[in-house]
């Protein structure tokens, strides 16, 4: 019993620490400019105002949300398909140059992106893709080394020899992947989906560099622009951040149900 109480106390404290800073976002999103300077950050502004949300939602913001949603959906779909294929080959097939190629993929993660963004931009300019959806999506839609690394590691936790039976029945690599391995990878696929959705949704630097018009503007860039105006509109930024978070929470709640096995197995007490 004491153990249970201790467990819940730990979880409650951890959850509070995790969420507390975001409570400040929530409170600030409903404050007027005047309340912002007259109340402490952790006290609500009374009466709360819907003006910030109304101002954003009445303007171009919904369009930016839609842009971001389209970008996120395409990147996630691409990532799930191409990453799974590549990771499967790296983890469970054998071919010449496999390990060299894999570590080359991983090595690309080690170069700080601030500087590689410049050559990448120049490449996009050569291809005439600046300020287009293609330019925005191209670098990430074919699967990222990060995702491939993640899935490779999970494919490798599956017992060797799993494919043997299917192979004896004459199944090819694609059938083995789709019928034998993927059903066992649901927790990993759920994780990959979550991190891709959220990383795409929050991506900032590349959209900032490659796009300029409203047609392709994403939320993070829109929120940052609120900061560039005259003075900092904290209350608007927080309202924007709140609007950005809600869909992410929904996505998380949806995908996290895959991060459990179909048969409930616990065994950790």
């Amino acid at each position, binding site marked *: 019993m004491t153990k249970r109480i201790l467990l*819940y106390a730990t979880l409650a404290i951890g959850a509070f620490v*995790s*969420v*507390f800073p975001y409570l*400040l*976002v929530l409170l600030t999103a409903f404050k007027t400019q005047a309340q912002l300077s007259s109340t402490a*950050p952790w006290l609500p502004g009374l009466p709360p105002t819907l003006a910030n949300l109304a101002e954003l939602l009445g303007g171009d913001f919904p369009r930016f949300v839609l842009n971001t949603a389209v970008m996120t959906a395409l990147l996630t779909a691409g990532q799930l398909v191409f990453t799974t294929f*590549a990771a499967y*080959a790296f983890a*469970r*097939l*054998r*071919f010449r140059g496999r*390990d060299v190629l894999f570590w080359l993929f*991983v090595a*690309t*993660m*080690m*170069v*700080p*992106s*601030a*500087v*590689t963004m410049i050559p*990448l931009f120049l*490449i996009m300019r050569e291809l005439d893709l600046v300020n287009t959806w293609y330019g925005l999506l191209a*670098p990430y839609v*074919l699967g990222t*080394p990060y995702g491939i*690394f*993640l899935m490779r*590691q*999970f494919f*490798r*936790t599956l*017992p*060797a*020899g*799993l494919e043997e039976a299917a*192979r004896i029945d004459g199944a090819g*690599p694609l059938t083995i992947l789709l019928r034998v391995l993927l059903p066992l990878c649901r927790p990993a696929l759920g*994780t990959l989906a979550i*991190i891709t959705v959220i990383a795409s949704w*929050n991506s900032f630097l590349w959209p900032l560099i490659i796009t300029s018009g409203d047609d392709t503007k994403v939320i*993070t860039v829109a929120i*940052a622009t609120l*900061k560039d105006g005259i003075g900092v509109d*904290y209350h608007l930024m927080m309202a924007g*951040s709140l609007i950005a*978070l809600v869909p992410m*929470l929904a996505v*998380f*709640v949806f995908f*996290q*149900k895959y*991060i459990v096995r179909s048969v409930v197995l*616990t*065994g*950790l*007490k």
Partner: protein
Amino acid sequence: MTGRVPNTRGDGTVVTPLNARRRGGWHAYLFVAPSLFGVVAFLLLPMLIVLVLSLFHWELLSAPEFAGLDNYRRLADDGQTWHSLWVTFVYVLLCVPLQTVLALGLALLLNQRIKGIRLYRSLFVVPWMATPIVLALIWNWIFDPRDGAINSALALVGITGPDWLSDPAWALPAVALVSVWQYTGYTMLFFLAGLQGIPKELYDAAATDGATPAQRFWRVTLPLLNPTMFFVMVTNLIGAFQIFDTVYAMTDGGPGRSTEVLNFRIFQTAFKEFDFGYAATLSTLLFAVILAVTLAQVRFFARRTTYDLS
């Protein structure tokens, strides 16, 4: 545990390639092709360009001019960069171990059947979902020396808190703390997915053999989490060595140069001083450091074997 046949290395590399020798071949290349194209065109090529640029003087407005090893010679005497590298190492040591241990602990707690588990999982991941630029602002409020949340709470128990972000001794730990806050729940996700893959039978067998919970953790859970742990350590370290946003938004490298991590210095060199050639050289340095750290981990994990479970 049936038959202790070490068939995969700790990082997951298959040692006895029973399962894959015949198939594969051209199929494998087909599977890899789309990603390979993307990686080569959009990641590897820019990376090579940066390596080449490190041999040039290039101040954006002028044309690049070949400089041989000039930039590297400059690097050798550049005390500021070595200071940044030191700050980066301190930062990494402050956040990665703490974050990993906390995340694993949380994952173990949240891998049980308890009420409200989904809610808890969601709450712990919120820090990572939120818009980064906004969070830095919030944390500046929380760290405010006079009426920020942390020092107000400390004052309640009679402690005078430090000046945090304006104190050279505390600014870096404060930034590290924010990173730990931001990435613990995220890291937990991977451990959680890894834990779901461990067959329950192993725990039953261990329990039958009279293993204590501690033994089960060290002998069953941890070895079987090896592939996940390898991924988490490699990617978290790569990410930590490249820390930039938090520093940029919270401290701008200060006070003094106390939080000027290497990636921040690279950014400054490229976009404030417009010295792209030298920024490329600094990027190459950071790349080399990360590569060395990663290779060390590959060796470390390769030595630890897991066992065939089939």
